[in-house]
């Protein structure tokens, strides 16, 4: 392809070069209508998906009700393994959310152009993942109706939460994360809700989207405050990507258990979180891209970049595993050495240990191949391995450090109960249900941002015949070799 900008791209088919971030020569009107179509079009087959996930969500609430009314003994938890599934799932889910914030906030500040089509999607994922994560610590209390004791409110008892403990930090970090993610997501949605209002086929939908759009008119006065406000919100969400999982890792790191008491935990947890989150982005994006035919806004360039992120974070996680084992040996502490070098690789849960090394460190190396990076099917499979591997990593961290207490007389083996498995599967279902509803009712590709980016790119491409504009042109039309 030559230098004439996007008008030259003849068809809306698969990209030839695979480097473009947006394809096709449609007008803004066609682009908007195409991206709003999933909101109006009937969903004949996805109806069944909604029914299945709703059934799974029902199973989740049934299991939680059973737990709350009967007691925590229904779970496999024992002493010394008191944390078990609830905390594994909590850490796993909250970690998944991190990629969404990473994409929407950090890549926004870095002005990365491949962020634009997938950020709304990833933010939705974040929001729903935090909802799942939030269930676990509350029910793990055993008496979830006392969860409000974590809030400093003036009470008859005259006592306050102990803020020197990392557990109240968690409460504040997670609730802040949920609120900020929601605000950021909703702010970004306003112009697109207005577009949905203005293209809605029926008066009822026009009214509903009109209410949620809050009367957005795209007024120059709106944009003036919105542009800078959205950017600063992104700037504030950025430290949250790093702080939330760091604070959660402190729940572990400030204890004195072998395998937990380690300074590498905050960066290790953050990298793992972004790793599993990008895997979740792939898991959701690949099917959605195929079902809604988003090939010209979610191009192979997007897949390629996400795959590279997986590779980078995968290596950080691998490095953390190596450091963990090395530091245990280097410390000379017999308990650390036992946990990291005997218990994990050679005892009861050895299968989990070697399994996660395979899933998290070996499988991802296939992404060195450019062909696999741009193949949706291959990426989907790798992402599935990463999801399982990252869940297994949290299992290993929590269970192996706990089940061998300091005194051999306290040693116990942990096995999850069927309620544990139901709750885990139920949260996956509930997550998918929320996500399907999001795809059904919310414009999940940022239309306004996409139109703006398309104009910027075509401007930059036209403005300079070579040099500075070359990169913009390449991003626009996919001609970079």
């Amino acid at each position, binding site marked *: 392809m030559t230098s004439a900008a996007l008008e030259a791209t003849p068809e809306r088919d698969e990209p030839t070069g695979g480097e473009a971030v947006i394809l096709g020569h449609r007008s803004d009107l066609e682009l908007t209508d195409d991206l709003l179509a999933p909101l109006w079009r009937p969903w004949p087959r996805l109806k069944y998906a909604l029914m299945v996930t709703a059934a799974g969500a029902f199973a989740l609430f049934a299991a939680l009700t059973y737990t709350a009314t009967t007691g925590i003994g229904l779970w496999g938890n024992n002493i010394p393994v008191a944390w078990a599934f609830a905390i594994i799932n909590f850490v796993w889910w909250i970690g998944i959310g991190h990629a969404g914030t990473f994409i929407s906030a950090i890549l926004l500040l870095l002005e990365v152009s491949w962020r634009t089509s997938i950020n709304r999607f990833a933010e939705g994922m974040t929001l729903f993942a935090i909802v799942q994560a939030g269930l676990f610590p509350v029910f793990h209390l055993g008496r979830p109706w006392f969860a409000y004791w974590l809030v400093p409110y003036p009470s008859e008892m005259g006592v306050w939460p102990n803020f020197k403990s990392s557990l109240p930090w968690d409460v504040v970090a997670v609730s802040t994360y949920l609120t900020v993610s929601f605000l950021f997501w909703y702010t970004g949605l306003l112009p697109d809700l207005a577009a949905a209002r*203005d293209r809605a086929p029926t008066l009822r939908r026009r009214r509903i989207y009109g209410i949620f759009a809050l009367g957005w008119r795209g007024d120059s006065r709106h944009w003036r405050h919105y542009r800078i406000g959205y950017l*600063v919100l992104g700037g504030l969400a950025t430290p949250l990507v790093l702080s939330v999982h760091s604070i959660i890792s402190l729940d572990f790191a400030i204890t004195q258990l072998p395998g937990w008491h380690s300074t590498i935990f905050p960066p290790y947890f953050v990298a793992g979180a972004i790793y599993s989150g990008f895997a979740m982005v792939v898991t959701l994006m690949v099917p959605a891209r195929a079902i809604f035919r988003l090939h010209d806004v979610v191009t192979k360039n997007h897949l390629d970049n996400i795959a590279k992120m997986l590779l980078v974070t995968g290596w950080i996680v691998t490095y953390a595993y190596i450091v963990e084992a090395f530091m245990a040996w280097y410390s000379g502490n017999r308990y650390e050495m036992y946990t990291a070098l005997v218990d994990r690789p050679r005892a009861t849960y050895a299968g989990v240990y070697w399994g996660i090394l395979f899933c998290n460190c070996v499988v991802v190396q296939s992404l060195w191949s450019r062909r696999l990076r741009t193949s949706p099917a291959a990426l989907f499979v790798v992402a599935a391995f990463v999801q399982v591997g990252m869940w297994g990593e949290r299992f290993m961290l929590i269970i192996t450090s706990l089940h061998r207490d300091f005194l051999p007389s306290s040693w116990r083996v942990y096995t999850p109960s069927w309620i544990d498995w139901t709750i885990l599967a139920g949260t996956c279902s509930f997550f998918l249900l929320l996500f399907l509803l999001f795809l059904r009712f919310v414009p999940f590709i940022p239309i306004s941002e996409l139109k703006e980016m398309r104009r910027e790119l075509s401007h930059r491409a036209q403005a300079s015949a070579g040099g500075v504009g070359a990169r913009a042109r390449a991003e626009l039309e996919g001609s970079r070799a």
Partner: protein
Amino acid sequence: MRDGVVAEFDAPEGLERAFARLTALGYTRLRSWTPYPVRGVVTRLPESLVPWIMLVAGLVGASLGYLVQWWCNAHDYRLDVGGRPYNSIPAYIPIAFESGVLAACLAGFVAILGLSGLPRLYHRVFEIEGFERASIDRFWIGVDARDPRFEDGVREVLEASGALRCAWIGGDAPQQRLP
């Protein structure tokens, strides 16, 4: 904007041209309605106060977050945990930080809406026929009738800049008011 002339463009370049010309002629009460921020218009507007509001809210939030912890654990009910100081600064940082971020973001959201005059479900411009494409692919400019330089000749400037059409919004059009 209550009364005035609005004009529709099919590309942001036309809007930018009209905006630049009217600004050069001394017009100050100009508005635009666009599907995405148009650089030539948004960059000419005065700076937004939103970041300052967020900064103040963030500092207040962080201070309050710290104060609550200090008051609870070091003042009202002195809590000795493992011999750490009652006012244990490092332990109080995470919550203070998160409270600051939370307050700043809440304030930012409210400020974006509040300064934009939202939520406001009805506005006079919605009455203009075809205005619903302002959120899709059309670019509208509005010249307020209260502008000291306002005259009906503004339509010619707009049309010369490439406007598809011009319309009068608001109460009676000036031609009808004058005999």
